[in-house]
């Protein structure tokens, strides 16, 4: 894997899952909907198919729950929603992320005031 790909992988690790949590913070969304959204963001997910194992893990750790529902236009959809634990994890991440980002910005020289 190239260095660029390696960096993207490293940066994704530990952050992508909170992007997923934030996506379902206010309303439940179905898998394909989540995957399409990430497909629109360059460099966020390695490929669309890698989102499903991530959703599975977030469900297994109790941050998401899921339920299948009929779709008006296609096959049944699996809707994901945030659990109370997931909500708490997302809030915790937001706090940590801001201070983390500020520190990195300061040290690397990427902050606006740097």
């Amino acid at each position, binding site marked *: 894997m190239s260095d660029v790909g390696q960096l993207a992988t490293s940066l994704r690790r530990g952050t992508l899952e909170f992007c997923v949590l934030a996506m379902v913070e206010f309303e439940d969304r*179905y*898998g*394909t909907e989540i*995957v399409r959204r990430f*497909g629109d963001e360059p460099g966020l997910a*390695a*490929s*669309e*198919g*890698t989102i*499903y*194992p*991530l*959703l*599975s*893990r977030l469900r297994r750790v109790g941050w998401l729950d899921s339920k299948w529902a009929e*779709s008006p*236009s*296609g*096959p*049944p*959809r*699996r809707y994901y929603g945030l659990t109370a634990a997931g909500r708490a994890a997302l809030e915790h991440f937001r706090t940590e992320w801001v201070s983390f980002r500020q520190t990195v910005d300061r040290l690397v020289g990427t902050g606006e005031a740097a």
Partner: protein
Amino acid sequence: MKTQYTDVVTEYLREVDLRLAGLPVLQRRELLADLAAHIETERVERGLVGEAELIEVLERLGSPEVVARAAYEEAGPLPPIAAPPSPPVAMAPPPRDRAPWVLPVIGAGLVAMLIMMALCAGLFFFARSGNSPAEPMRMAPQESAEPVAPPAPTPSFTG
């Protein structure tokens, strides 16, 4: 009909499935169901009509290798007795992220650890229940700190 389109999908899902042999069966089934639902949703909601369009959907999902690798990464540490040893695939064995001996070794280590913990707990309980209330007996430190380590059981399920 849609058989010619589903052929490529069936083949793709089979290729993914072949690479998931080390995962717990429910996670494996879940991922395949999710992928199948995704492909079908894309096909219906986007009104895809040709195999080429369906292949694009599969390409966006990623190669079976990439998807399987993500599945293993997200599975985390697998339970000690994860799966019966899968029979080796006769043709074109998929690249595996883990060496085949890793699971049995981890399993044996976990079993040994559980036995040690059970021994410690038993020792502790025995020492407590043997105490007279008036004069609690202190546990001999070397005894509690160093329970006799049982020999690690040789795994019978070497894969």
